[in-house]
Structures are given as structure tokens and as C-alpha cells.
């Protein structure tokens, strides 16, 4: 129990004293996962909507692949990304391994199927005649997509939160492709694992609390947007 209390106190001290290293780690966590989530939003919402609203041969196969992708083990993603990015791999010339960019790539690969799958379900659950009605109102294809997305705002924002949640808490792939390098590719999750491995439980708990705090804060903002009353 005192370990938890110690952890809380340490977390507060680290944050309020603006400990440089902790701030750096925190900022990097938010940057990496934030960017990865943004990428996954662009890819996930656009593809998910396209698949949801279009009929094409083999559609069921594509949908099942997307749904399976939602359960893609992050560690597996990390392993494959490592193999692709390392020096002697196909993309070795880009020198991306052990960089935050590699972490963004791995996290984006993890988050995109999640966002895509939920978007797909959300758009499919809209009444099928709604699309016709919106077109009948004279909407261009872009206008129609925008209106449909607003209609599906509740599940779409849930998709954002699911995607973000999946990657900000991710550690296996991040360690593998990032290398947990001090001051460079170390994020809250990888630092927590390292400190735990070293036996520094108070620091580990402090970092965990900081992570939980930011996760909660961001989800609070997103939830408020999701649930807000429709304005005039």
C-alpha cells in the first residue's frame, strides 16, 4: 500500500518539479501516440467508410480481414516492423529503426484496423435510406460523407478513443522498434517496463500514474465532444 502512496507522491513531485526527463518522456508519449492516432484516423475513417458504403466483389473477405486486424497482437506488429526496418531489411536504407518515427509507424499499424473496424460498423448501422435522402437533398458525395460522419459521431469518436487507447498503452512494439533510448525514443510505457525491470517500483508507479492521468484527460475531452448537446 505504501508503495502506491509513495508512487503517487513521487508522481506529483516529478510532475510539479517539471523534471526534465519525465517531461520529455511524457511529451514524447503524447507526440508519438497522438501522431499515430491521427494517421490511423485518416486511413481508418476513410477506408472504413468506403468499405461500409460500397458494394464490391469480395467485400465480406475484406471486412473479415479488417475485423481480424482489430485483434492484431501489437508484439507481432513490432516484430514485423523491426524486420522490415532494420538495416539489412527492405527499408533499411531509410534508417528508421530505433527512432520515434518507427514507433509512430508501428502504432499507426496497430491503431488503424481498430479505427477502421469500428468506423465500418458505425457507418453500416446508419439507416440505409439515409444516404438516399441526403443525396436527394442535392448533396455532393463529399457533403454526403461529411453528413453521415456527423450522424455517426458517437461511434466514430469511440473509434478515436479506442485507437488512441490502444497505442498510448502499447509497450511491446514500442520497445522493439524504438529501442527505449534515453531522451530519444523512451516513452512512458517503455520507461515503466524498464524501471520495473530494475526494481524501481516507486518510479514505475509514478510513471504509470502520469500515463493514466493523461489518458484520462484526453478521453475526457473526446467524451465531452462526443456527448455534447447539439447546438442551434
Amino acid at each position: 500500500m505504501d508503495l502506491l502512496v509513495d508512487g503517487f507522491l513521487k508522481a506529483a513531485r516529478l510532475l510539479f518539479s517539471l523534471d526534465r526527463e519525465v517531461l520529455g518522456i511524457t511529451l514524447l508519449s503524447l507526440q508519438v501516440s497522438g501522431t499515430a492516432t491521427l494517421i490511423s484516423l485518416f486511413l481508418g475513417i476513410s477506408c472504413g467508410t468506403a468499405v461500409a458504403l460500397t458494394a464490391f466483389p469480395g467485400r465480406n473477405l475484406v471486412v473479415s480481414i479488417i475485423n481480424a486486424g482489430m485483434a492484431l497482437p501489437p508484439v507481432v506488429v513490432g516484430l514485423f516492423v523491426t524486420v522490415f526496418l532494420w538495416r539489412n531489411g527492405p527499408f533499411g536504407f531509410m534508417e528508421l529503426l530505433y527512432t520515434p518515427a518507427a514507433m509512430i509507424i508501428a502504432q499507426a499499424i496497430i491503431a488503424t484496423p481498430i479505427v477502421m473496424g469500428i468506423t465500418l460498423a458505425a457507418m453500416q448501422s446508419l439507416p440505409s435510406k439515409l444516404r438516399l435522402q441526403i443525396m436527394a437533398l442535392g448533396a455532393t458525395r463529399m457533403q454526403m460523407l461529411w453528413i453521415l460522419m456527423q450522424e455517426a459521431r458517437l461511434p466514430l469518436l469511440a473509434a478515436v478513443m479506442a485507437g488512441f487507447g490502444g497505442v498510448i498503452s502499447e509497450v511491446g512494439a514500442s520497445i522493439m522498434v524504438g529501442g527505449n533510448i534515453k531522451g530519444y525514443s523512451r516513452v512512458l510505457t517503455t520507461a515503466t517496463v524498464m524501471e520495473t525491470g530494475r526494481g524501481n517500483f516507486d518510479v514505475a508507479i509514478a510513471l504509470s500514474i502520469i500515463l493514466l492521468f493523461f489518458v484520462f484527460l484526453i478521453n475526457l475531452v473526446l467524451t465531452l465532444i462526443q456527448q455534447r448537446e447539439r447546438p442551434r
Partner: protein
Amino acid sequence: MKTISISKIFLALVVAILFMSGMSETLQAAEQKTVILATTTSTQDSGLLDVLIPLFEKKTGYFVKTISVGSGQAMAMGAKGEADVLLVHSPAAEQKLVADGFGINRRLVMHNDFIIVGPLDDPAKIKGTKSTREAFKKIAAANRLFLSRGDNSGTHAKEKDVWKAAGINQEKEKWYQQTGLGMGQTLNVAAEKKGYTLTDRATYLALKKNLGLDILNEGDAILLNIYHVIEINPVKWPKINVAGGKAFADFMVARDIQDVIKTFGVDKFGAPLFFPDAGKKVEDLGK
């Protein structure tokens, strides 16, 4: 409609700023010449590299990516040309790496020692036993719990050597448990379960306060933990940073850095964690 747009714009701005600053850091680092150093978690956890790496970077302008993994993985990275230089402490595996042609210029850097720690009441009664081999035999005979890292790390390799030297086949025994974890965590498991384990002195000293484990055997020559720095052969792997790897290896055996190694840990633990050995012969160590 307006208020939704505002908060969305705000969110987008925040993210864009974060993203932008993140990207610029990444680009900067990529432009510098990077050296990939593969080393072990115990080396990293001792904190020595946190002192040495900044010194090296300042001196040479290289950006070092320290990847700390188990010895096995570090060797494998070297063998695959995914690291430029290795700092490891697994002599048998290192010799194989050099014999296979992947490692060159293997140079002695420093040593520290392993110790056997265990519960305060020492149920296997190994305290006072001079020979580590004998101590291990006593633990086996008493069927007392022994925790192994089981991760092909240098520590694990050393531990296996001792079992072999003691003539004990420990793998299948019930009292022998492998955690697959780092040294710090394994120590914690040993403390929780009141078992024995082999550890490097540095990690033990760092965690001693909260552990509740005592040093029960030390000093035997077999327990010496010897660190070498190995450069990777560019003939095998042309893409490695030859100059960077060499610069780091030279740095580790340089006079002034060896002095830094000699004094590391004294103020925190009252005793040095490592003993610099550059230029010496392995056979002379520990005497």
C-alpha cells in the same frame, strides 16, 4: 455547429504542434551520424552508460542508440549486422562471434563480479563455503528454490557454467525456476519467494535496500564477470558504421574513461561497481 468546430480546431492545433516538434527532433537525430550499441540490460541498469554515453557523444559528436537487451539478442544483432559495436559479458558466445568472423577487435574493458544471494536464514547453509561450485551443490542437495534469469543473458550464461562445473543437471529440477526476466525483476522474485539467485553485484547493490536478500557467496574466480567491447566486421556487413563503432570501442579502453569507470558508484554505494581492465590479460584478472 460553431462550438464543435472550435474544440476540434483546438485539438487539431495541439496535435499539429506536438507532431511538428516531434518530427523535427527525429529529423535532427537522423542527420547526425548514429552508432548502434548493443549491450545488456544489466550493463544499462547499472547506470554506467548513463555517465559514459553523454561523454562519448560530446567528445565525438556521434549519436549513440543504446539498445539494451539480453546478451543472446545482443550477439544476434551483431551477427546480423544490426549493431555497430557490442559491449557484452558472455565470453564463450563472444569467442564464437569472433571465430565466425562477425566480431573483430575484441578488447577487454572491465570486470565486475557475480554473487550468490539468498534469504537471510540461508536454509541451504551455503554461507562460508569458499567454492561457488560447492555452494551450488549444497543448494541442489537441499532442494532449495533457485531463480534463474533463463534469458540467455551474460548472467544466465555464467550461471549455467557454474552448474556445469558443479556437475549438476539443473534444468529439469523442480526447485530450479526460470523467470525470463531482467536482473532487477529476478531479484525481486527471489526475494518474494525466498529463493537463491546469481546476480551481478551492481544490480544487487542498487536494490539491496528493499530486497531482504543477503550476499551468501562471493569471491570465487569463476564468478568474475568480464566485459569486452567488440566491433562488427564491415566485410560481413557493409552497412555498419565502421568509424563510429571503432570510435566507441577506442573510447571505452581509453585511459581517462577507464578512470571514470574506476570511480563509478563509489559515492552512491561506497564501493566501485566495475574494475577497469583495458590492456590486461584475462588470465590475470581477479588476482
